[in-house]
C-alpha cells in the first residue's frame, strides 16, 4: 500500500497557481526526491500533504488516511523549511516536548531525546538554549525533532540547508538508516548532489507541475526512454563483428579501438558486452553514459537563473 497517494492536488494563492495537478504515489521504504527551482511549489506541496495548507482541489491520502487526519500524524515526522521554536527552551527540553506531543510517554521521550541529541552531534549542547544556537545547530535539532518518534513517513524540507559538510554526510547517513528501517522519506531539495546520493526516485517540479518522475539506480538516473549511449574501448574490433550488433544496438562511430554505440534498451547492455567478448574483442572499457541528474534537471526544468 502506498504511504502517499495524491490525485490532482491543486493550490491557488489568490489567482496565483502554486501547485498544479500534483499526482504521485510513494511506496513504504522509498526515498523520494522532490526537485525543483525556487518557487516551484515544493514546500506548498508538502504543506498540503501534511494538512498545514488546504488544497484548492484534488484528493490525497497519507498513510491510508485522508488529508488532515489527526491520529495518523503520530506516524509522520516533519522538518519544516525554516525550523524555529521557542528560543528559551534548551535543546533537550525541546526534543522531550516534541516527543511527548508526538505521543511518546515521559520516559521514552527522555531516552529518545538523549539518543537523538547524540545522533545529530548536539550532545554537548543538550542544556543550551535554542536562542544561542547557530543556524546549522537549529537545523540539526529540527532533524532530530522530525525523527525521534520513529515515524513511518518523514517529510524533510531542505534538510541540509545551513549544514556544514559533516552535517550533510550526517543527513545522508540518516536517510539511509530511515530506508533500512522501512520508513518512507519525502525529500524536498534543490541540491542535486544530496538527491543523487540518496534517493530511489526523483520528481522534477517546475512552476507547480511535475514535469518528470525518474527512478535513480545507484545514484544514476535510469535511462528515460530506450537508448543508452555506450563508449567502448576494445582491441580486435571488425566490421563483421560490429554488423552482428544490429539486433541490440546501432554503431554511431568507430575508429580503431574506439567505438560509440547507441544501445536501444538498458536491459540489452549485458547481451552486447557478451556478444563482443564472444566475438573475440578484448574489452578495456565499456561505459554506458547515463544522463547525470544535473543534465536531466537542465533538460527538464531549464537552466534559467531567474524566476
Amino acid at each position: 500500500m502506498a504511504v502517499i497517494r495524491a490525485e490532482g492536488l491543486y493550490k491557488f494563492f489568490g489567482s496565483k497557481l502554486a501547485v498544479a495537478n500534483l499526482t504521485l504515489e510513494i511506496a513504504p521504504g522509498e526515498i523520494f526526491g522532490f526537485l525543483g527551482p525556487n518557487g516551484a511549489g515544493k514546500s506548498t506541496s508538502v504543506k498540503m500533504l501534511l494538512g498545514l495548507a488546504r488544497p484548492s482541489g484534488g484528493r490525497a491520502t497519507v498513510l491510508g488516511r485522508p488529508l488532515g487526519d489527526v491520529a495518523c500524524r503520530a506516524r509522520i515526522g516533519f522538518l519544516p523549511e525554516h525550523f524555529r521554536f521557542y528560543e528559551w527552551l534548551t535543546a533537550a527540553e525541546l526534543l522531550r516536548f516534541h516527543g511527548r506531543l508526538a505521543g511518546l510517554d515521559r520516559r521514552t521521550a527522555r531516552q529518545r531525546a538523549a539518543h537523538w541529541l547524540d545522533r545529530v552531534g548536539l550532545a554537548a549542547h543538550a542544556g543550551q538554549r535554542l536562542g544561542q544556537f547557530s543556524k546549522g545547530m537549529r537545523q540539526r535539532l529540527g532533524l532530530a525533532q522530525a525523527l525521534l518518534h520513529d515515524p513511518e513517513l518523514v517529510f524533510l524540507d531542505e534538510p541540509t540547508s545551513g549544514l556544514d559538510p559533516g552535517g550533510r554526510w550526517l543527513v545522508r547517513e540518516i536517510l539511509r538508516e530511515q530506508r533500512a528501517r522501512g520508513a518512507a522519506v519525502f525529500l524536498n531539495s534543490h541540491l542535486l548532489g544530496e538527491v543523487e546520493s540518496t534517493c530511489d526516485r526523483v520528481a522534477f517540479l517546475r512552476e507547480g507541475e511535475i514535469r518528470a518522475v525518474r527512478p535513480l539506480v545507484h545514484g544514476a538516473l535510469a535511462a528515460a526512454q530506450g537508448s543508452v549511449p555506450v563508449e567502448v574501448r576494445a582491441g580486435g574490433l571488425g566490421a563483421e563483428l560490429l554488423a552482428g550488433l544490429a539486433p541490440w544496438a546501432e554503431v554511431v562511430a568507430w575508429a580503431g579501438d574506439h567505438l560509440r554505440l547507441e544501445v536501444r534498451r538498458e536491459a540489452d547492455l549485458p547481451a552486447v558486452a557478451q556478444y563482443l567478448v564472444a566475438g573475440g574483442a578484448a574489452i578495456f572499457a565499456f561505459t554506458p553514459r547515463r544522463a547525470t541528474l544535473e543534465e536531466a534537471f537542465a533538460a527538464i526544468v531549464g537552466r534559467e537563473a531567474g524566476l
Partner: protein
Amino acid sequence: MKLLLIAAITLREAARRKVLLAAALLSAGYLALFALGVATQFRGPHAPAVLIRQEITASLLQLALYGVSFLAALLAIVSSLETVAGEIGSGAIQALATKPLPRWQLLLGKWLGFAALLAGYVAVMTAGVTLVLWLGRGYAAPHLFAAAALIWSEALVLLTLTLWFATFSSPLASGVAALGLYGLAFIGGWVEQIGALTGHPGAVRVGIVASLICPSEELWRRASYLLRSPLPGASRFTPFGVASAPSGAMVVYAAVYLAAILALALRHFSCRDL
C-alpha cells in the same frame, strides 16, 4: 493529555517573557504605593468620622482593584499577542500543527495557559490589595471572590479577542484592535454612567451598545458594584462608583460572548493555512 502540554508550555513561555517581569515590577510598585497611601491617610488632627472613613476605604478598594483590572487587561493583550500571530509568522507553529493533536486543541491549550497566568495574576493582586486594607484599616471587603472572578473574566474577554484577531492578522494589528475595543468599552461605560447620573437615556443606550460590542468594562462595573460601600447610595459620588449598575444578565451575556469569540477563534484557526 496533549492539550495540557500546550497549556503548560504556554504558561512557561509567558512566564519567561520580559512582559511578565515588567508587569510584576509595575504591579509590585503599584501595591507598594497603595500601601503607602493607606498608611498615611487619616493621620493628623482632621481625621474624619467613622462612617465616612468606611466610605472612603470602600472607594479606595474600588480604586485599587480598578488599577488591577486595568493591569490585568493590558497583560492579557500584551502577553498573548505574540503567540499565535508571531508563531504563524515565524513558522514555529508548523512543527506544532503537524503533531497528532487537532488544531483547536492547540489553540485552546494556549488559551488555557494564558487564562491560568491571568488567574494567578488577578489572585495575587487582589490578595495584595485586600491584605493592605485589612492590615492598615481592619477592613474586610465584601464579595471579594466574586469581584476577583469578574476581573479575571474581563481579562479573559480581552485575551480571547486578542487570540481571535491573531488568527488572521499580525501581532501589532491584533494588539491595536484589542486595545481599541477595550477603549471603546471603557468610554462607553463612562458615557453610560454620566447618562444615568444626568438622566439622559440616549447616552445610556450608547453605553449599552458599546458594552454589547465588548463587555469588558461591564464586567469591571459589576465587580465594582459588588465592592461598593454598604451605605445606600453613597458610592455614586466617588469616581469609581456605579450610577447604573450592570445587571446579572450582562454577566451572562459576557459569558456567552466569551464562548462565542473563543469558538470563532478556534474555528478560524482550524481552517486557515499555516
